């Protein structure tokens, strides 16, 4: 009977690697980014010097950034894919339902220069089970500042002027994820003259590439509670 015991041990050793290969993979957390192209529909937003409305330029920037992030294996949820009217509460609702690891609210403007990054001006607060809608972002301020830091580094590395600030923006304050409002302003020379408008395709591509690089960097950072 000894040979039977050895045969069972041998069969087990052979079968183990095969079983291991067929075992279901360990569950991995999906990295989801929410892109919120601001304005849309009846809300045109600001008007650029080219005559284009802000809602059109933000949608174009969102499409570019979504393609870059998808190509890098990041799942993207957008609050709008067309010229649809969405209020700020609806945008925050969509972002919160996506259980995203980060949210970027995309804007363009004729004022200032380069890329403006804004984090909510709410004071940091501990995360609790039920959050007030108007100040839900307070529990994510620390992570939002970390995200703004990653975006700042990447955009500056791309050679674009960056301005960091805090703001009270409807919608952003209600998001339950690390959230930053990104405002693309004209690229200006040192004398203040405009080099590229925010709706310029190559300028948007440059900015989107930098933002995508920042999202990748942020994904690799160790998460804090």
């Amino acid at each position, binding site marked *: 009977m000894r040979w039977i015991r050895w045969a069972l041990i041998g069969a087990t050793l052979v079968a183990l690697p095969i079983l291991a290969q067929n075992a279901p993979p360990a569950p991995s957390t999906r990295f989801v980014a929410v892109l919120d192209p601001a*304005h849309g529909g009846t*809300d045109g*937003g*600001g*008007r650029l010097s080219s005559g284009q409305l*802000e809602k059109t330029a933000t949608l174009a920037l969102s499409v570019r950034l979504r393609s870059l992030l998808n190509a890098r294996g990041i799942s993207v949820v957008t609050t709008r894919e067309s010229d649809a009217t969405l209020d700020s509460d609806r945008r925050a609702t969509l972002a919160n339902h996506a259980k995203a690891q980060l949210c970027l609210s995309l*804007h363009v*403007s*004729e*004022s*200032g*220069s380069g890329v*403006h990054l*804004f984090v909510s*001006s709410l004071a940091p607060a501990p995360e609790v089970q039920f959050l007030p809608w*108007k100040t839900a972002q307070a529990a994510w301020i620390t992570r939002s500042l970390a995200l703004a830091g990653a975006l700042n580094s990447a955009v500056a590395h791309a050679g674009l002027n960056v*301005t*960091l*600030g*805090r*703001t*009270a*923006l*409807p919608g952003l*304050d209600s998001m339950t994820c690390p959230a930053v*409002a990104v*405002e693309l*302003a004209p690229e200006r020379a040192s004398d*203040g003259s405009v080099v590229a408008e925010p709706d310029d395709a190559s300028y948007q591509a440059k900015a989107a590439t930098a933002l995508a690089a920042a999202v990748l960097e942020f994904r690799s950072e160790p998460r804090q509670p």
Partner: protein
Amino acid sequence: MIPRYQKVLFVLLLAASLAMAGILWHLRNRAHQRMLAGEDSAPTQAPEVEPAEQATLVAANDADGSLLAQERSLPLPEDPGTRARVLLGKLLDLYASPDSAHPVPGGAAGIAQVFLLPAQSAQDPLPADTELAVVNLTGSFAANHPSGIETETLTVLSICATLRANFPHVAQVRFLVDGQMRPTLAGHADLTRTYLTVNAVPTGASNP
């Protein structure tokens, strides 16, 4: 021979003419007296101008998103609400100037009123003299304000910082447009919330 009725008619017409001349003379004198009385009520002295005082305007700069404090010598009224309106009007005049670093059209006319009220807080008890400033902007100022997160945020923060620099007891600021609540200034900056002046701190100082 002149008939009698013609003599009577002549006398009556002569009397009427004299009476009318007398009335005309009297009316002329009254008009003259009225004119002299009007001249007496005209101002003969220049209106009193309040003495100039040192005030701080915290002006925004779109180029780098900064808030810079500028010292100015301005004649300011005594009443705190009027004083705040004049100060904020001067700030908006800076923004309306052609070489402004934060161009916003409208100028001083963009501030309709400023009310200073006792402040309240649901969370933390505030000192008794803490005040809330309610800044009532005009609809035309909001309608013509450039749209954008940075430019709108800087306008709001520079108003808060200017109030804080000149009225240390003002801890909170709320905004109205034409006396009504409005969701945003020009599509971005939230005007429904109460701003804390402690969060609006100038990043530097500059000479005018």
